[in-house]
């Protein structure tokens, strides 16, 4: 069977706009969450988010590095983040210049949960105020979710499968899982896979706040607001950004002497069949996805050393933890589990990809990132290592990453280190 490995990484997040900066900040326990600066929050219930920082910030994002200024003007920010993260991943993998034969075997699977909501909001106002003749000719293709994959394929000449997952907050994980299958099934040798999101706009923030999903009670202390597994948690904090990996067929990667970060060994998918926003109270969907991913991986549950939890800082954390315990054991079989949403917020469609990259870096550096703000752990967490407050050095050879989305869609990925 064709094996699938990770050979390149790219990140744009509230903690930085390149992999090493983000990781350094995450391990140091920095928070990327703050008061919203992107728009006037007058009248909003939620005033905080994890924004990608402007170019002049120490961890800022400079869109001009990898995205043409004309494209920046035409598309929503989630596409700009996605193009940049994809470019980073290709550069990291040493795959920016491909021959024609390789281009036919290289594709994209980069999705988003929501897509270009800020642009839809602005252009809708424009339509109503000024009429249909003032709507931008770039409106549609500047907002469509599959236009990260589209733009990246054009920029780098990638003529293999061009795919984009839309499964709310499971998007990033599904994108990687689906792309890994495309390589395994011989549709491609190289796939850029990941997710991006940017919905820190008035409509996005109001919509999630009205759905009672966001933390609206800690506006005065933004860095403390995302607190997964803590008794005082009160909803998620929205983040934004992108994560993209280069997936590559193992022999292809070896033949060109590529740096191999990890192998994608297990992928599990399921549906809750229960409620549009609330997870199944017994976490059956989550459990099924995890069990499938571990079964496919050929590993034992006891081989998992680190779990990057979905852990959004909502009541659903309890349900996920119970499900993880049923799969790995009451003490998680000695695994550590943390939620990095405590530091960067919830990147929605980008989350599963960004968090998969954190899992990979945990294996590379043998250190697991912390769950920030975990001062009063909830009941049921007593025998579990949730890596409170500070990063922890430990052996990490295999990881499990969970992502769950609105609609009751679940995805789990298992990755492991590759021995030389």
């Amino acid at each position, binding site marked *: 069977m064709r094996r699938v490995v990770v050979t390149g990484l790219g990140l744009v997040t509230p903690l930085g706009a390149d992999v090493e900066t983000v990781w350094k900040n995450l391990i140091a326990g920095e928070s990327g969450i703050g008061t919203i600066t992107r728009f006037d929050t007058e009248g909003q219930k939620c005033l905080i988010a994890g924004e990608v920082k402007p170019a002049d910030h120490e961890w800022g994002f400079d869109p001009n590095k990898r995205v*043409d*200024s*004309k494209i920046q*003007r035409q598309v929503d920010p989630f596409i700009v983040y996605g193009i940049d993260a994809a470019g980073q991943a290709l550069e990291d993998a040493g795959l920016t210049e491909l021959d024609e034969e390789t281009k036919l075997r290289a594709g994209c699977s980069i999705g988003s949960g929501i897509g270009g909501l800020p642009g839809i909001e602005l252009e809708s106002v424009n339509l109503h105020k000024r009429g249909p*003749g*003032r709507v*931008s*000719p*770039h409106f549609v293709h500047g907002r469509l979710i599959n236009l990260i994959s589209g733009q990246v394929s054009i920029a780098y000449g990638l003529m293999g499968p061009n795919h984009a997952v839309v499964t709310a907050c499971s998007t990033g994980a599904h994108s990687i899982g689906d792309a890994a299958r495309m390589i395994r099934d011989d549709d491609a040798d190289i796939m850029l896979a990941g997710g991006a999101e940017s919905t820190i706009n008035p409509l996005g923030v109001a919509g999630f706040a009205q759905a009672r999903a966001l933390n609206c009670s800690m506006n005065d202390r933004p860095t403390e607001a995302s607190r997964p597994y803590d008794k005082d948690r009160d909803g998620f904090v929205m983040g934004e950004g992108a994560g993209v990996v280069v997936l590559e067929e193992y022999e292809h990667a070896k033949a060109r002497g590529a740096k191999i970060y990890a192998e994608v060994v297990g992928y599990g998918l399921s549906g809750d069949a229960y409620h549009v926003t609330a997870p199944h109270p017994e976490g059956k969907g989550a459990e099924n996805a995890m069990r499938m991913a571990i079964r496919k991986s050929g590993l034992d549950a006891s081989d998992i050393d680190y779990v990057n939890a979905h852990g959004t800082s909502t009541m659903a954390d309890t349900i996920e933890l119970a499900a993880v315990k049923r799969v790995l054991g009451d003490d998680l079989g000695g695994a550590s589990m943390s939620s990095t949403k405590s530091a960067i917020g919830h990147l929605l469609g980008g989350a599963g990809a960004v968090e998969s990259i954190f899992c990979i870096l945990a294996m590379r550096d043998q250190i697991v990132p912390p769950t920030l703000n975990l001062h009063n752990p909830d009941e049921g967490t007593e025998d579990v290592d949730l890596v409170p407050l500070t990063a922890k050095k430990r052996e990490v050879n295999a990881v499990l990453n969970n992502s769950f989305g609105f609609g009751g869609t679940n995805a789990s990925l298992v990755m492991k280190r590759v021995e030389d």
Partner: protein
Amino acid sequence: MSDIAARVKKIVVEHLGVEEEKVTPEASFIDDLGADSLDIVELVMAFEEEFGVEIPDDAAEKINTVGDANKYIEEHVS
């Protein structure tokens, strides 16, 4: 250069991301400045906005060069 030509040039530079020197009256939007059909729709909208003129579709179709744009606007701006 007339005031109109200078303003047209500025819009073209901004929208197409091209160097100012390339925006000559003879320059074709598509052949010389790398625009596609949608870029031209957008440019026409920007001209309409800047100069307060309406450029109907049949007239817009005949605007192929920077000079064509200058000429149309000079003739129609009130």
